[in-house]
């Protein structure tokens, strides 16, 4: 078991290394990609600032707190993109028959798909989120204690897993319907926009939905409560500790569903 995991990791890193090399071949596209993403997110941040300039605050959240909330979501999303973003192409792999090719190789097709690409372009967002995070940290005069750094780390890993699992879940739809790209835009984009704001501005049922069913609240909102010492919200900051376990559990569920989809694909074809 351990041996086959190590072997899988070795194959993963080798394939990912090749993917990085390929992307670096197109140097111009590579640089533009990074710059483009960084600019896009900076643009959103500026819009947010303009809005807050006239409103003052949203539900007790100041501009710098909102920037922090936003940057935390972008941070884990950028890692998700690096690792998982190509899952939204699953339908292409299936329709074009590329997926069959993965199945005649002696590794798990999930490993094959995830190792196909390592999207270095997404580092632009990572860059933005780190800079934004540092500015917000200084402006808010935060001084995290050790447990808060752990929550922060848990939010990054857990958030990456939660959003990555969403992509895996959406890609699994392609096994049944041979379409997943549209589902990606219909689900992932609204969900990500939702995360730019404190969850408490939304109706109760949405709050419950993104806490218990599709646990986006654990990506940034709940850990931000802990990290910003916000105790006057309807959620207890205590929830922020659970990003990592929730991420792991959600990933396990989505991976299971992906495998069910694979079984369906094997019996029904495309």
């Amino acid at each position, binding site marked *: 078991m351990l041996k086959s995991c190590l*072997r899988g990791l*070795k*194959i993963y890193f*080798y*394939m990912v290394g*090749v993917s990085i*090399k*390929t992307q670096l*071949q197109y140097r111009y596209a590579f640089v533009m990609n990074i710059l483009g993403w960084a600019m896009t997110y900076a643009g959103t941040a500026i819009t947010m600032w303009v809005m807050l300039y006239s409103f003052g605050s949203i539900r007790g959240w100041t501009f710098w707190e909102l920037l922090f909330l936003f940057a935390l979501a972008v941070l884990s999303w950028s890692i998700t993109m690096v690792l998982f973003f190509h899952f939204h192409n699953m339908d292409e792999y299936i329709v*074009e*028959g*590329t997926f*069959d*090719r993965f*199945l*005649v*190789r*002696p*590794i*798990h097709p999930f490993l094959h798909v995830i190792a196909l690409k390592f999207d270095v372009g997404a580092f632009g967002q990572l860059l933005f989120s780190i800079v934004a995070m540092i500015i917000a940290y200084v402006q808010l005069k935060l001084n995290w204690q050790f447990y808060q750094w752990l929550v922060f780390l848990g939010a990054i890993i857990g958030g990456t897993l939660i959003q990555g699992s969403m992509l895996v879940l959406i890609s699994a739809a392609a096994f049944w319907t041979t379409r997943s790209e549209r589902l990606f835009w219909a689900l992932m984009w609204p969900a990500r926009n939702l995360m730019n704001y404190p969850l408490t501005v939304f109706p109760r049922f949405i709050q419950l939905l993104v806490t218990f069913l599709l646990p986006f609240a654990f990506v940034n909102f709940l850990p931000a409560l802990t990290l910003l010492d916000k105790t006057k919200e309807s959620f207890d900051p205590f929830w922020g500790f659970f990003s990592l376990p929730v991420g792991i559990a959600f990933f396990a569920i989505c991976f299971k569903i992906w495998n069910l989809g694979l079984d369906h694909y*094997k*019996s*029904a*074809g495309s």
Partner: protein
Amino acid sequence: MSLIEVRHLCKEFKIAKRQEGLTGALRSLFHRQYTTKIAVNDISFSIGTGEMVGYIGPNGAGKSTTIKMLTGILVPSSGEIRVNGLIPYKERRRNARQIGVVFGQRTQLWWDLPTIESFELLKQIFQIPPDRYRQNMALFNEILDLDEFLQTPVRQLSLGQRMRADIAAALLHDPKILFLDEPTIGLDVVAKERMRSFIREINKNRGVTVILTTHDMSDIEKLCQRMILIDKGQVMYDGELTKIKETFGKTRILIVDFEENIDDFSLDGVEVIKQEGNRRWLKFNREVHTASQLISQISEKYEIKDISIQDPEIEVLIRNIYEHNYTLDQVFTDKTRI
């Protein structure tokens, strides 16, 4: 026991019926109706080590579906498959190590990478020992001249080069069995010949069992001793290629150009099957008449300008089988069809 055993293999697909109009589309969201399509219907065969078998049939006959089940991509609806003792859909990964697959229409190489990178990736994925890898690469290089394009990205390769790279990639991990789906499709004559001689070579020298699907009957004639012919998911014929040719070689066609137009041509044992100007196509049975006999008989009565003899092509025979939905026994008894 033979290398590949297929017993009463069936595969059914459920296809969702499309309903018309907007209301139909809405209704089908909640309540779908399915039609069942039987792609493979009770197929049985066995293939021994070192054989080279042509698996042929028209589009939609069930060829690809069978290959997909043999390679472990699809799970059969019923029936049994053993590939070198393994059940492909249950032990897909172990099975993958003992088979090589080439889908002629699409490459299994990494599109954006220099060709050599695909080989290196496969080396990692299949965990090919470095020595084995080096030996194989050296050999394939020698026969297929891979060197000339190893540094070129796959997307820039010509079709012939890509097929050479693809077949080398499929053989890199020393598979026992090679599945070739349309390996010569779209290739020019020279590239086709090269591909065929490579397939022959690895079959002969390495003992690799080859299963080949193709639409090009000359692939079959030049490569395979045995042919499995399927249509509508069923085996129509399974046996030697030469047997078909011998049986059908019984009827031959004599093409005669006469000096002048003849309206009332007739001769015993000869049937005029086509005419065009002064040219006649005459069908006869080789076992009853010899060609020279006929020619002398005809030349006694008429002035002949030119003459040629045609053997029926395997392609014609197969087309007949498909068009008339015959089993081979029927074709053998009804010889007037050719």
